Structure formats: C-alpha cells, structure tokens
C-alpha cells in the first residue's frame, strides 16, 4: 500500500527541533493545499470531467423515476434495465412476510389453544333442548361450505408455497417438495377464481342481515360475552359475525383482485405492479386466515350448539336465546319454534315424515 502524501510517515528524525519544524511545514502544506489546488483549477479554466457513466447509471438505476430505455427485445418491462423495487420486495418477503406471517399464524393458534384452556367450551347455560329454530336455508348452507372448501384449499396451498421452503423442504427433499409445490401452485391458480365466485354468492346472500344495527355497539362494548358469564343479546348475526362478514367481503375482494392480477400476467402489468399485488395478496390473506381460524374455532370446538345451524339448518332454541336473544324473541313471537319431532319430520328422518317442508326445498 502506498503511503498517502502529506502524512508524517516519511519524516526522517534529524533532531527534535528539525522534526518539529518539518511537522509544522507539513501541517501548513496540508492546510493550504486544497485551497491552492482549487485556485489552480479555476486559473486553468479547467477541463470539466463529468463522468458520463454517473449520468448513465443514474438513469439506469431509475433514481429519477422510471425512465425506460429502448430495446429490440419485446416483452413486459424488457426496456427497464434495473428494477430497484426487486430488492425491496425480496427483503419484504424473506425478512418480514415469512417470519412475521409465521408468528401471526402460530400466535393465533396458541391464542386459541390458550383461550380454550382458560375459557373452555362455551356451554349453553340452559342446556340443549328439544326445541329448534330454523336458521339457514339449504342454499345458504351450500354456499357457506362451498366458500369454506375453496378457502381451505387455497389457504393450504398458499401456505405450502409461502412456508414450504423453510418447513417442508428440509425433510421432504427437493424432488418431492417441488412436486408438492407445483401441485399447490397449479391448484391455487385454478381454485382462486372459484373463491371469487363464492365470495360474490355469499355477499349477495348475507349482506342484508349484516348491516350494522343499534344493539351492535353494546355487544362490542361488552366484549361479545367473551369476558364474564353473561351473554349479550344480538340480532340474527351479532356484531362479531357482522364484522367477520365485512372482513371477508372487503379483505376478500382485495385478495381476489390482487390474485387475479398475479394469475393473469397478460395485460402488460410490469414487475412493480406484480410485486405490489403480491404484497397486498400475502398480507390480506394472512389476516384472513387468522380471522378464519377464530371463526372455525368458535364455530366448532369453541361453542356448544354453534355448528348445528350450518349443518342441519336448525339451531337450538336455548342456544339462540343466549347468543341471539333478539332474533330468538322475534322468532318465538312469530311462532317459528319447532319441536324435535317436527324438525326430524322436516328433515325426513322419521318414517312417517315423507313430506319435505316447502321451506327446506324452496331454497
């Protein structure tokens, strides 16, 4: 390595005084040199040496906004030399999305487990009785389970693609995992639009009952009856269910929209829009999965009597009184309460009950 000019490394040790003198001179030179150089430059009226490369690379790196060049090669974005967002997207996916997404999902599962251990299964205080209320028509149940099927399949395949490399690849081996990932990708792409269809069907069917009403705020303020023993009265859907519906509709439409951008790379959308679509798809989807985990929990192991309405179409009267008091009261006032025999007759379970109710099949 060459010593830098002006440093004191090359000073011979004549004497202390001489050394001091030399040091002073060097210091003087050091202080005045830049000035002298600047003077010389202006005097010469010097050659400006702007490096053209600097300008070139500035536009190549897209520092001053996207300025694509020209190329003989046809294709989306082919005239863009450097896409500065690629690295940002990579960092988001690898350093934020995968770890924090994993924490969010794991945290939600842990939370549900903890909640189950602390609160246990929410029982119907009055016990499950004989009397039922008709809750969901056949069509409503069908589209609900249709949405559920497509959502679960899409969530599973999507999670395989997102976390598979870190979780599955090490013990599956590259060949087998690649097979699974390819199957997941193709399945995800094909089933994606089905979720869009399901979302539309669910939206149009349930939107009227999901508009927020007067009692909803008190439900929220009382924490939906999660804390404490008392149940909060609500209409056909309570505040939580309504919020879940709107999350499904709003977040779901973002998911479907961004998914369509990703799955149809035909309309000249460049890398930047694909990256944005991917980011919004991933974030909203993880949010949706977390919400749906809660939905599945409360609908199955979390609450007694909650699943019946979506499987048989009839819910328990006592359950309805405790969880949807206002709806149950109205039904009772209208005389819509059915006893178990009537229900099984309507469902064709008794020998004599050959007639199927018109309400059941009119869906």
């Amino acid at each position, binding site marked *: 390595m060459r010593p830098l000019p002006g440093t004191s490394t090359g000073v011979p040790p004549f004497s202390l005084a001489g050394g001091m003198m030399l040091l002073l001179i060097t210091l003087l030179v050091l202080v005045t040199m830049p000035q002298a150089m600047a003077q010389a430059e202006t005097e010469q009226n010097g050659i400006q040496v702007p490096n053209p490369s600097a300008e070139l690379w500035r536009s190549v790196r897209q520092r001053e906004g996207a300025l694509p060049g020209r*190329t003989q090669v046809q294709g989306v974005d082919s005239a863009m030399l450097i896409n500065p967002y*690629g690295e940002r997207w990579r960092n988001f996916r690898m350093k934020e999305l995968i770890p924090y997404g994993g924490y969010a999902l794991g945290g939600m599962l842990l939370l549900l487990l903890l909640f189950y251990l602390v609160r246990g299964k929410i029982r119907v205080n009055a016990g499950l009785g004989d009397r039922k209320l008709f809750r969901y028509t056949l069509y409503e149940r069908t589209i609900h389970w249709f949405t559920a099927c497509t959502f679960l399949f899409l969530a599973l395949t999507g999670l395989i*693609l997102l976390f598979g*490399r870190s979780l599955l690849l090490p013990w599956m081996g590259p060949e087998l995992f690649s097979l699974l*990932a*390819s199957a997941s990708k193709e399945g995800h*792409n094909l089933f994606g639009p089905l979720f869009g269809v399901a979302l539309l069907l669910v939206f149009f069917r349930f939107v009227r009952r999901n508009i927020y009403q007067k009692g909803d705020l008190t439900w929220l303020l009382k924490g939906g009856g999660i804390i404490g023993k008392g149940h909060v009265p609500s209409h056909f859907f309570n505040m939580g269910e309504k919020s879940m519906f709107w999350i499904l509709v709003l977040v779901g439409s973002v998911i479907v929209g961004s998914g369509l951008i990703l799955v149809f790379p035909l309309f000249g959308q460049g890398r930047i829009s694909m990256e944005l679509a991917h980011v919004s798809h991933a974030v909203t989807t993880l949010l949706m999965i977390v919400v749906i985990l809660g939905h599945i929990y409360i609908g199955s192991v979390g609450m007694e009597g909650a699943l019946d309405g979506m499987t048989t179409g009839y819910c328990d009267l006592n359950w309805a009184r405790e969880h949807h008091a206002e709806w149950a009261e109205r039904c009772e006032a209208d005389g819509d309460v059915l006893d178990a025999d009537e229900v099984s007759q309507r469902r064709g379970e008794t020998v004599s009950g050959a007639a199927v109710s018109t309400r059941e099949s009119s869906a």
Partner: protein
Amino acid sequence: MARMKFYCDAERCIECNACVTACKNENEVPWGVNRRRVVTIKDGEPGERSLSVACMHCSDAPCIAVCPVDCIYDTIDGVVLHDKDICIGCGYCFYACPFGAPQFPQEGAFGSRGKMDKCTFCAGGPEEDHSVEERRKYGSNRLAEGKLPLCAEMCSTKALLAGDANVIADIYRERVINRGASVLNRGVSYQNAAFRASRGMEGKSSVKE
C-alpha cells in the same frame, strides 16, 4: 476459485445486438425467451448509451433467496444456475431480479408460465456436462470446455466482457485510465472525448469547433 462476472462497457457498446443473436444461436433458446438483451438509454438524445444485460450472476442473488422451491444455486465459479426439474414456474425470481433476467416461455392465463429460463453464463445446468439433457434444457456448456460465454467472446467492440471478476476489473480500470488520459491530453470533456472530434485537422468537418 474465480468469480465469474459480466461487464458491459457503455462507452463501447454500439447496440449491434450481436450478443443477443449469439446467445440465441448458441443456446437454442425457444421463441419469447431472451436470455440477453440490449437496452438503449436516451435513444437519439445526447448522452445515448447502450448496455447489454443478462443474468449478472449476483453474489447475493435475490432469485436464490426468494425461490419457493430453492431451485436456484450458485456454483463454485460464482455462476448462478437453476434446476429446471425442480422449478415450478411461479415467477418470483422474475419479481425479485433487478435485471429482469429470468424468462418464461409462456405468459398465459391462469399463471401458466412454464419453467424459468435464464442466462447460464454458458455453463449448462445441474445435469452431467455435455449431456443431451443438459443441452436440451439449458443450452451450451462452454465453461466446461474452458471457453467463456459466446456473447462476450464475439462482441465486436469488446464492450461486453466476461470472465474472472479480477481480470475484468483490471481491463476496465485500464480503459478508464486511458480515457481519462485522453481527456487530459486533448483538452476536451469526457463526453466529447468519446466522439473523436476532428481537432487540428484540415478540411471539411461536420463538427464546428
């Protein structure tokens, strides 16, 4: 070991697209796949420069990081290669790559892209060297023959350089020094130095001094 690099000298590239043609011919890539392309910045304006770009075989390659099936890897020579038997054609490498190097044979509806294809630095793929499979999937393997990528080898102005990063850097540094010297010597700006104005010459000149 050497780290293989491409370097394109923008002061020399004349946008002849010979590298693109050479690459297509040598590797027999399908239609629609362009492992290499030449991009012209400020086309037709002062300061026009062209650059030939392909996979730059990054040291910390984004494509390797984001691939969901981990099919992209770098060799001991610093060449970034990928395994087409593992690739699922998701397109993530294309999003992450700053240079737009990963190419897909199709851009169909419902995400049908086909397997990713990109510049291999003429180093084939994970298959056995010079096997039929390797030829079919990845094109030629010149590196195994001790040759450099054809695009750089047949660049007429030697703008595109390929090889060991240290050697490339030395060549380029020498060029930069020479250019700087010519600027000082002839007293023109760097911008004009490249154009060789007819300074001190008699006769007709299109350039007014």
